[in-house]
């Protein structure tokens, strides 16, 4: 088995290498083609379809009779799209290549690898005397290549941590970038004053401009590392937000400084105007973004009949926002980000599940392709442009970039820490400072410098040097360093199994309690926004604002997921029902002699536990990984198991008449009662037991949603009744299993009640068999009749306002990607 896998991997690699070489040959061959272009054009006349009969009266009797060409080639016609596609393919192949060697991407960030491949291809092109395509011209970059990346970041932005830390993020992004750019610019200007370096012709404005360009941080590689290491949420979101927003600041500064660089003298009014312009730009960007976001949301309200083009709206509106903002020269990056954030919340509720998936996939795809291309071209262009190398300038740029960033983070953190509920300690600050890699924006901006700047080549060289240095050296080293400073003091001696299990339990508990307490520090605004949102926005922008449809659709989705997952799992039933079944067997064997566990067994147990116990929930919820879609599999697994265990404990009667009590309690069949009506079952259940109605509602919802119980029927297959009954018989206090399971759906249904339904009371613990039997009888007798009026149980507050709230269960499904929405309901 191992050898065949190896063989497959090797053939994979071989095939890949061949494809890659083929592509390179194409690139080279294309160069050949271009040289034969003039020759090709000479063929053109013969390519035209010729009407042989017309040639008679014409005055070219010497012309040869042209035959219908059987095989022709017209390269120039397809040249542009062909090359475009080739480049994208090449970059994507590179990406495939990296991931064949899985370990590489752990140690070397993808951006490094892409740049390296770009360097290689650039070398090839240089040797063939070929020019790279003008990808990095201002228009192409800013209009075509940058928007997908920004959309990707904005769409998958973790909104809840972002809004919790919005002040800090903006503080670092705006003030930090200003600090950096002015600091670096001034220091470099000071260096330029030294005659010995030969840089005296670079004036202050140009230095400041260069400083602004260099201070654009692109922490992609750092983000990946942080996420893997599990750095805390605050640091993560600050770096993420900073990287996103300082693009906007940098562009503003760049425009301002390049404008100033043209002026012979700078007056103070210009500076003030610059500051004013900054605010206009920022506010305008946000405004436009929000506007377009709302329009997009409103549009999707009406698209339920044209599901196929729903994803289009997301892209078109966000791109429009970007372009319109560019037109007015306000911050298009900000516009795009705010548009994406605003839109996402509402659009994902309006569109179908498939459209939602499509949107996410396409956003990710475009963003990844764009980024790949940029880094790739960085490598290519590095080789093929003219460079001007000046040791002093470049070295000092590097040094100053480091120093000013470190200082900046330090000073800014000191200032902002007292206002934060969770201050940054030095480790966090180091992570922030060291994670400040430079990347694509810096590169593009320097390329679009006007040629009036006489030392442009020097700037280009310096930027490329800084980028390559930070990406390679810092990018590769950040992981070991962060791991080193974060090293936990683990006991070297083997823990007992007890310790391992109990400590994991405690960690889960602490994580849960922390979530329970919440770290929200801006309750007031959040509540206000939530009220506004519920009352006005949702009514306008969402198609089906009633809670009903969301419950049913949620259950449809959940059931679908469950069905798909059950079919997918290699091992058996993920609802783990059979495992509980076997419990009853083992209980009988409890009297057998104690097993002897050998050391090897214990080690194996440790292994099993450490590999399979659920990790503590990463607060950042790995959905800001740039290179992959949100990974919801673990949370989905937990949720589906809960859901399944809830349904297992559904006590609806069987399809046919329950035969007499001959069937031992241990063998009840579980299936959903056909035609059972929600309300009636609910009412009957409530009346008979005063609790547990939740469970029936689920089962009835399942039926309402039309999903056949068999789709998830493994857990409903004849199986033993859960221990609860037997244990209920044996212990007077009931076990918690059923209770807990029943309470599970509360989170699904808690607030999603129909109309003025009184809330579901918490299921009371069953305490005797008799009640069980009663229930089964009662559900059998329930008929699909009109719901009897439900008396609101005393003491429970009506959850009327929850009728407004959308499916509480939504967070379950889209939780990972909609942390904001879920927690906004709180």
């Amino acid at each position, binding site marked *: 088995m191992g050898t065949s896998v190896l063989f497959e991997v090797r053939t994979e690699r071989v095939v890949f290498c061949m494809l890659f070489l083929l592509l390179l040959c194409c690139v080279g061959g294309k160069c050949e083609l271009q040289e034969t272009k003039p020759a090709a054009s000479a063929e053109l006349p013969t390519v035209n379809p010729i009407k042989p009969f017309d040639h008679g009266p014409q005055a070219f009797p010497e012309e040869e009779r042209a035959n219908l060409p059987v095989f022709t080639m017209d390269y120039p016609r397809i040249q542009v799209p062909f090359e475009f596609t080739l480049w994208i393919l090449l970059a994507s192949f590179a990406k495939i290549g990296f991931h064949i060697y899985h370990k590489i991407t752990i140690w070397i960030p993808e951006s490094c690898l892409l740049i390296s491949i770009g360097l290689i291809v650039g070398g090839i092109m240089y040797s063939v005397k070929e020019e790279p395509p003008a990808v990095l011209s201002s228009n192409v970059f800013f209009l075509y290549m940058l928007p997908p990346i920004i959309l990707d970041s904005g769409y998958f932005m973790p909104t809840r941590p972002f809004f919790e830390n919005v002040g800090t993020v903006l503080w670092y992004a705006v003030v930090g970038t200003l600090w950096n750019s002015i600091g670096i610019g001034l220091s470099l200007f000071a260096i330029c004053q030294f005659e010995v370096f030969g840089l005296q012709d670079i004036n202050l404005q140009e230095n400041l401009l260069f400083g602004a360009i260099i201070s654009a941080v692109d922490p992609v590689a750092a983000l990946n590392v942080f996420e893997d290491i599990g750095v805390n949420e605050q640091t993560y979101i600050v770096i993420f937000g900073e990287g996103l927003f300082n693009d906007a600041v940098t562009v503003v500064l760049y425009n301002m400084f390049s404008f100033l660089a043209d002026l012979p003298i700078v007056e103070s009014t210009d500076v003030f105007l610059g500051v004013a312009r900054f605010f206009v730009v920022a506010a305008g960007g946000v405004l436009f973004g929000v506007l377009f976001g709302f329009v997009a949301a409103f549009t999707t309200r009406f698209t339920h009949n044209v599901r196929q083009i729903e994803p289009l709206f997301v892209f078109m509106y966000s791109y429009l926002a970007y372009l319109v903002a560019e037109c007015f020269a306000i911050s298009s990056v900000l516009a795009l980000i705010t548009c994406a954030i605003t839109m996402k919340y509402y659009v994902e509720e309006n569109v179908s599940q498939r459209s939602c998936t499509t949107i996410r996939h396409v956003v990710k795809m475009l963003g990844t392709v764009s980024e790949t291309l940029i880094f790739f071209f960085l490598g290519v262009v590095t080789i093929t442009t003219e460079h001007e190398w000046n040791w002093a300038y470049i070295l000092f740029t590097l040094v100053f970039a480091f120093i000013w960033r470190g200082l900046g983070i330090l000073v800014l953190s000191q200032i902002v820490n007292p206002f934060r509920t969770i201050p940054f300690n030095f480790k966090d600050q180091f992570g922030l400072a060291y994670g400040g890699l430079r990347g694509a924006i810096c590169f593009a901006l320097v390329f679009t410098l006007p040629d009036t700047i006489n030392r442009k080549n020097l700037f280009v060289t310096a930027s490329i040097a800084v980028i390559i240095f930070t990406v390679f050296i810092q990018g590769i080293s950040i992981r070991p360093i962060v791991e080193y400073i974060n090293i936990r003091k683990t006991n070297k001696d083997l823990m007992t199994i007890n310790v391992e299990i109990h400590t994991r339990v405690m960690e*889960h*508990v602490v994580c849960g309690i922390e979530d329970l307490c919440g770290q929200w520090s801006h309750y007031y605004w959040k509540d206000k926004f939530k009220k506004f949102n519920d009352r006005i926005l949702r009514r306008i922008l969402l198609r089906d604002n009633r809670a009903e449809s969301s419950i049913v659709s949620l259950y449809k989705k959940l059931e679908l997921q469950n069905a798909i997952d059950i079919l997918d799992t290699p091992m058996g039933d993920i609802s783990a029902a059979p495992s509980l079944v076997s419990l009853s067997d083992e209980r009988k064997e409890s009297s057998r002699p104690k097993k002897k566990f050998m050391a090897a067994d214990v080690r194996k147990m440790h292994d099993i*536990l450490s590999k399979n116990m659920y990790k503590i929930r990463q607060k950042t919820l790995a959905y800001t990984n740039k290179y992959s879609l949100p990974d919801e599999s673990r949370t989905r697994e937990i949720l589906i198991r809960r859901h399944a265990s809830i349904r297992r404990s559904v006590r609806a009667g069987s399809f046919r008449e329950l035969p007499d009590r001959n069937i031992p309690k241990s063998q009840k069949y579980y299936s959903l009662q056909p035609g059972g009506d929600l309300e009636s079952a609910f009412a009957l259940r409530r009346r008979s037991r005063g609790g547990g109605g939740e469970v029936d509602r689920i089962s009835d919802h399942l039926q309402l949603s039309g999903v056949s119980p068999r789709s998830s029927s493994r857990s409903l297959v004849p199986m033993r009744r859960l221990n609860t009954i037997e244990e209920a018989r044996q212990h007077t206090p009931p076990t918690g299993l059923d209770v807990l399971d029943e309470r599970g759906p509360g989170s699904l249904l808690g607030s999603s009640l129909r109309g003025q339904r009184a809330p579901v009371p918490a299921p009371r613990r069953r305490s005797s068999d008799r009640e069980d039997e009663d229930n089964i009888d009662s559900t059998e007798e329930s008929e699909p009749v009109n719901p009897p009026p439900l008396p609101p149980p005393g003491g429970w507050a009506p*959850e009327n306002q929850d009728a407004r709230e959308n499916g509480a269960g939504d967070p379950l499904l889209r939780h990972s990607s909609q942390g904001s929405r879920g927690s906004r309901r*709180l």
Partner: protein
Amino acid sequence: MGSRASTLLREEEIEEIKKETGFSHSQITRLYSRFTSLDKGENGTLSREDFQRIPELAINPLGDRIINAFFPEGEDQVNFRGFMRTLAHFRPIEDNEKNKNAAASEPLNSRTNKLLFAFRLYDLDRDDKISRDELLQVLRMMVGVNISDEQLGSIADRTIQEADTNGDNSISFNEFIKVLEKVDVEQKMSIRFLH
């Protein structure tokens, strides 16, 4: 929000809670505003549904048990005092408290009480023993779907074997304490409450 919270929570109550749990004034008001924001029915108590509405708890493997821990035996509503009493278990142990020995009533966040909280997560039927089944239930919740039942059963057996000193095939509270004596429970079961 600030004004609304403090009008509903009287000063004497805050003082009482302070004495009972050891939280500071600002922590109590902050947690009260959290309590009210969870309390959808606005009747001053939380039900289980209110807890289940917290999405992060839904994806916590032990979410149900944690919620259960807030509700005293047989009750379905918890008021703010009860809420704080449970949360008090997670208050970090401060140094000056460590020196207090044999106070009249042990503070809620003492090591023993923290361990008792963890113990009660397993021991649902409150018979002061973690039976093999109870252990298995918790294990099952915490472990992915790839573990077979035999493996889990063996792990449970081994766990009990390691801890059980009096041979009753279950873990009593004292055995639980003993097994975790080297673990820094004070730090593991503490949350930094924000001011």
